[in-house]
């Protein structure tokens, strides 16, 4: 009998734990029907839990002494005004915010339909590739005309080249657009060759990729300056001449560069190397013959002697072979 009573007490204790939790839910109408039936049954047998029920009911009653009050109309008006002011201060969401919102909303929708998302992605990629292909054809077929703008100046329509667009904004409420841009304005200047500005412009002309004639004239003027020994030194003009001799596609330009480098050959090893390179590799025979002419006074450089020997022995051009041999015959033998 004792064992039965102890077992009953233990089960009652466990039942009480469940019942007490159920009571707090039952008081607030949150207990399901089946649990409610079980609790009823338990309460009929357990005086302790009946007391618990009364205690929870009492708590619920007691809470009415600390009620939740409606805010006063004054307070409500105050907070509404304050909120309106704050909302007015919130900047209207711009197009960027809307785009970002729509993007993330779209992502959220995509997450819920992965198969559809994959199909849309493939479709988008295909359409993009096709459009790119067609655009490429159009681009190749018809080059986009350079940006030109006509501006009425003093009653004369003048075509202007635009260097860059700095800002574009649409005038609110109209079809007008305000565009800020930089113009390329043609200018002319005249001055002495000794003028640094003129020299800078000539250097730019020597590097011009637009007009070979401009390159030739510019480089010729700079070469003349160097040949006459005026303000060349080892600065930008010498460098420009060396670059032109190595890389310019126009043989006339290379020839003028070679002429300009003549004063440097004896003293400047880097210039001599460029001239040697022209002797051995240049595609134009006039340039190579001129190079031999320039190297003739350099009798102490073994690399010059070696290069002349190579040309004299093996070059395809008979005239060049003869000239090189003549130069070598005129040089003293190196022991």
């Amino acid at each position, binding site marked *: 009998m004792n064992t039965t009573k102890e077992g009953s007490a233990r089960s009652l204790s466990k039942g009480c734990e469940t019942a007490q939790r159920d009571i707090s839910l039952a008081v607030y109408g949150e207990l399901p029907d089946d649990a409610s039936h079980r609790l009823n049954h338990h309460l009929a047998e357990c005086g302790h839990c009946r007391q618990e029920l009364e205690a929870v009911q009492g708590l619920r009653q007691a809470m*009415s002494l600390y009620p939740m009050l409606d805010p006063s109309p004054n307070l409500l008006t105050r907070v509404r005004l304050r*909120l309106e002011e704050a909302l007015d201060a919130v900047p209207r969401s711009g197009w960027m915010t809307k785009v970002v919102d729509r993007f993330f909303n779209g992502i959220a929708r995509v997450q819920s339909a992965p198969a559809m998302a994959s199909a849309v992605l493939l479709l988008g990629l295909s359409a993009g590739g096709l459009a790119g292909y067609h655009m490429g054809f159009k681009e190749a077929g018809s080059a986009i005309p350079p940006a030109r703008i006509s501006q009425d100046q003093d009653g004369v329509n003048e075509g202007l080249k635009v260097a860059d667009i700095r800002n574009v904004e649409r005038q609110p409420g109209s079809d007008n657009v305000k565009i800020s841009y930089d113009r390329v304005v043609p200018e002319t200047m005249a001055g002495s060759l000794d003028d640094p500005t003129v020299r800078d412009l000539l250097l730019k002309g020597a590097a011009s990729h637009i007009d070979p004639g401009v390159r030739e004239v510019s480089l010729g003027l700079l070469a003349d300056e160097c040949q006459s020994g005026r303000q060349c030194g080892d600065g930008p003009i010498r460098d420009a001449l060396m670059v032109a001799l190595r890389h310019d596609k126009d043989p006339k330009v290379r020839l003028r560069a070679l002429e300009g480098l003549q004063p440097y050959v004896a003293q400047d090893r880097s210039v001599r190397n460029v001239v040697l390179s022209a002797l051995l590799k240049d595609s134009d025979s006039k340039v190579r013959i001129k190079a031999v002419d320039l190297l003739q006074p350099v009798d102490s450089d073994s690399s010059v002697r070696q290069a002349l020997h190579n040309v004299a022995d093996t070059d395809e051009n008979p005239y060049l072979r003869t000239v090189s041999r003549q130069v070598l015959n005129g040089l003293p033998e190196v022991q």
Partner: protein
Amino acid sequence: MAADTLNLGDLRLPSQMATKPRKAQASNSVAVDPQARETENELIREAQQGSRSAFDSLVRQYDSSVLRLALHLTGSEQDAQDVHQEAFLKAYRYLGNFRFECSFYTWLYRIVTNLCLDHLRRRKSRREEQAVMMDSSGEPIDLLSNVSDDRSMANPDRELERKFLGEKIKAALETLTPRERMVFELKHYQGLKLRTIGEMLNTTEETAKNTLFRATKKLRANLATLR
């Protein structure tokens, strides 16, 4: 007590104490019938497209209940105003993210309860023990004087006793953790379903049930002498 006298389906308070917990006006204003729900959804869509007047209409539907909850939880008019303002500003900013997967009321109250929880946690960490509710000018509000009393017949002794009891209850509520306090307030004062409370607090209904049980147990222990 016999089992048949304990009908839990009709669990009522004794008639002399039958001051039912105030059902939240917010839940009354929640769009429950399909037509009202559709009207509200239309307002939300308009607000999402940038209509300020539509958003103002949504604010008018819910701001009173939001303010009441904040006022009760924070115990300060100033703090309640801050919570109210911050909640609706957040709602305004993030309304574009609302995708009608739950009711607007639940979505809005999720914002409000999070703000209130933050407030309660900050206050707990600061150990601010405000004994009385303060208005915006810093003057104490006499809560119990605002309770409609159909029982005391303006008996001064009874009034004094009620004030004392009210203070004890407030102090007992302060002993709850912020989450217990929130669940208890939303259940007891707002009358919300525990499932909804769970949604608002980003937790399960079961967790909300356990939290309510813990809260009532603590309150009972703290208020045992009142009975």
